[in-house]
C-alpha cells in the first residue's frame, strides 16, 4: 500500500515546489540588473490606459523585447498584495499613501516622489455623476444634503480612492467659507444621505449604473469611461472640488527598464493616451480645457494638510472623523 501513495505524494510535492520555484526565477535577477520582464501592479481603473501604453513602450528602444505581467485590483488591495510578497517592478496606485505604505515596508525608495511631477502620472477631479439629463437638477455639493437625495459612494475605509470623495466634500465645504466644524457637519449630513457604500470605486459605479441612487461621487475619469462604454450617465463638475493625483513608482526590485517605463508613462505620447481615456494629464498643455473644465475653486490634498495628517484626522479606524460618522450613520436606531 505505501508505495504508490508515496509516489503520488512525492510527485505532488515536486509539482508544488517546481511551480513555486519556477514562478519566481523568471522575475528575480537582483536589483539593478537588466530585465526582460516587467511586472506592473496597478489599481483597476487605468487598465485600459496601460494596455495601450505597454505596446507603445515595447516599440521604443528601451522597451524592445520586454514582456509584461499586469495585475489590477483595488488600490489598497494591490498595495497590500505588494507588501505581502507580490513581486512587482512598477506600482501605479490611486493615491500616494498606498505607495508610502510600501516605503515603510522597505519596498520602495523614500524619494519616489521627488521628481518634477511629484511622483504622479495622472490626474482627475471628483465629480458628481447623475442620471442622464440631470433630472434631479444637481448643481453642487449643497444639493447632496437635500432631503430625499440618495448618494452613492464607495466606503472610504475599504476604498482608498473613496477617500478622495470624502476630502473633496470636506474641502468644498471649507472653500465655501464654512469653518472646519461646519465642514465636518456637512460630511455628517452627506453620509446620512448615502444609501450604499460599496467596497471599491468600480463597485459603486456599477451600483449606480444598476439604478440605485440619484448621485454618485466619482472620479471624472470613471464617469468618462462609463460614458465611453455607452452607459447612461452625465456628470457635474462642482465649483469646488479636489484635484486627484495618481502616483506611479518603481519598486526596489525594479531596475533601469522599470524606470524607463515610468519615464515613458510621463512622455507626451503616453500622456496623450491618458488624456484620451478620460484623465487630466500631468502635462498642463495636454489638458483640453473644454473637455476638462477647470473648477472655480480647485484644491489639493496638500491644501487640506497632506495625506499623513488627513489619514490620521479623518480615517483613523477608532478616532477618525469618518469612523465617528460611520458609527453614527449605522446606528440601529436610524432608519
Amino acid at each position, binding site marked *: *500500500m*505505501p*508505495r504508490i*501513495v508515496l509516489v*503520488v*505524494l512525492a510527485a*505532488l510535492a515536486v*509539482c*508544488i*515546489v517546481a*511551480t*513555486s*520555484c519556477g*514562478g*519566481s*526565477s523568471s522575475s*528575480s535577477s537582483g536589483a539593478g540588473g537588466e530585465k526582460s520582464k516587467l*511586472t506592473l501592479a496597478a489599481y*483597476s481603473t487605468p*487598465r485600459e490606459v496601460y494596455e495601450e501604453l505597454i505596446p507603445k513602450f515595447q516599440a521604443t528602444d528601451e522597451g524592445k523585447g520586454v514582456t509584461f*505581467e*499586469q*495585475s*489590477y*485590483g483595488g488600490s489598497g488591495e494591490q498595495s497590500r*498584495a505588494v*507588501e*505581502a*510578497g*507580490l*513581486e512587482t517592478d512598477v506600482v501605479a496606485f490611486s493615491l500616494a499613501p498606498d505607495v508610502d505604505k510600501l516605503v515603510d515596508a522597505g519596498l520602495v525608495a523614500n524619494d519616489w516622489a521627488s521628481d518634477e511631477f511629484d511622483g504622479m502620472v495622472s490626474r482627475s477631479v471628483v465629480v458628481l455623476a447623475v442620471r442622464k439629463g440631470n433630472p434631479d437638477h444637481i448643481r453642487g455639493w449643497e444639493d447632496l444634503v437635500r432631503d430625499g437625495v440618495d448618494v452613492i459612494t464607495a466606503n472610504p475605509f475599504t476604498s482608498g480612492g473613496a477617500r478622495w470623495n470624502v476630502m473633496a466634500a470636506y474641502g468644498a465645504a471649507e472653500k465655501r467659507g464654512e469653518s472646519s466644524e461646519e465642514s465636518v457637519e456637512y460630511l455628517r449630513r452627506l453620509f446620512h444621505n448615502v444609501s450604499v457604500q460599496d467596497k471599491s470605486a*468600480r*463597485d459603486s459605479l*456599477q451600483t449606480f449604473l444598476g439604478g440605485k441612487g440619484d448621485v454618485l461621487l466619482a472620479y471624472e475619469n470613471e464617469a468618462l469611461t*462609463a460614458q465611453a*462604454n455607452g*452607459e447612461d450617465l452625465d456628470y457635474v463638475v462642482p465649483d469646488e472640488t479636489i484635484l486627484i493625483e495618481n502616483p506611479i513608482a518603481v519598486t526596489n526590485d525594479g531596475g533601469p527598464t522599470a524606470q524607463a517605463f515610468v519615464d515613458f508613462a510621463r512622455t507626451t505620447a503616453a500622456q496623450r493616451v491618458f488624456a484620451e481615456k478620460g484623465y487630466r494629464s500631468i502635462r498642463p498643455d495636454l489638458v483640453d480645457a473644454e473637455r476638462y473644465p477647470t473648477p472655480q475653486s480647485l484644491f489639493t490634498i496638500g491644501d487640506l494638510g497632506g495625506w499623513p495628517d488627513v489619514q490620521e484626522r479623518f480615517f483613523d479606524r477608532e478616532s477618525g472623523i469618518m469612523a465617528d460618522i460611520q458609527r453614527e450613520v449605522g446606528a440601529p436606531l436610524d432608519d
Partner: protein
Amino acid sequence: MGRLALRVFALGYLAALLLIPLGLVVFRAFEEGPGEAWEAVTTPDALHAFWLTILIAAIAVPANTVFGVLCALAVVRRRFRGHGLVNGIVDLPLALSPVVVGLALFLVYARGGWFGQTLLDNGMQVIFALPGMVLATIFVSLPFVVREVVPVLREIGDEQEQAAATLGASSWQTFWRITLPAIRWGVAYGVVLTTARALGEFGAVAVVSGRIAGKTETLTLFVNERFERFDLVGAYAASLVLALMAIATLAATTLVRKGEHT
C-alpha cells in the same frame, strides 16, 4: 388537491430561485449573438483562465482523493486516539468562510506571515502564485472524499479484510483487492464533489491570487473581472462555461449514483 398544490409549490420555488435565473444568464450570454459569446471566452486571458482552473483542479483533486481514502481508512479502521477530532477537523472546510480561509493562508505564506519571508528568501513564491491557489483550493475541497468513504467503510465492515489477512494477503493486497473495490462508488462520488468544489472556488482564491492577468486568474476570477469592466457578455459567457462544467459534474454524479445501484 394537496398533491398538486405541493407540486406547484416545489416547482415554483425551484423555478423562481434556480431555473429562471440560470436561464436568464444563458439568454444574456447569447444576447449579442453566439459569435460574441464565443469570442469572449476564447480570448488569450479567458483561455488561460480556463486552463488554469483545470490545472489547479488536476492537482487538488488527486491530492484530496489520496488523502481522503487514507484518512477514511485511518479514522474507521484504525480508531486511533483523536480520530474523532480528526473527523471534526476534516469537516471544518465545509463550514468555513472562504475569506477566513484566504486570510489564514495569507498569515502563513505571505511576507510577514509565519513562513513568508523564509519562502521568499529561497525564491519560492507561494502566495500570489500557483502554489498558493492550489493550497486554497485543496483546503476548501478537502472533506468530500473522506465524508463519502467513511460511511461506506463503516457499512461494509472489515470481515473480508480480516479474512484476507488470515489467508496471508499483505496489507497492500488487501487494500487493492478487497477494500478499494468495495469503496469505489464512495470514492467516485467524493471525487466528483471535490472536482465540482475545486472548479468553482472563488473567495479563498481571490484573496491569494494576486490577480495577474493571464497568469493567476482562474475562470471564476475572470468572471468577476469581466463584470467589473462592463463586459457583461464576457461575464455571462464565462459564467455559462462554469455552469456547463457544473452540469458536467452533475451528470457524472448521476452516473455514479446509477453505477452504485447496479
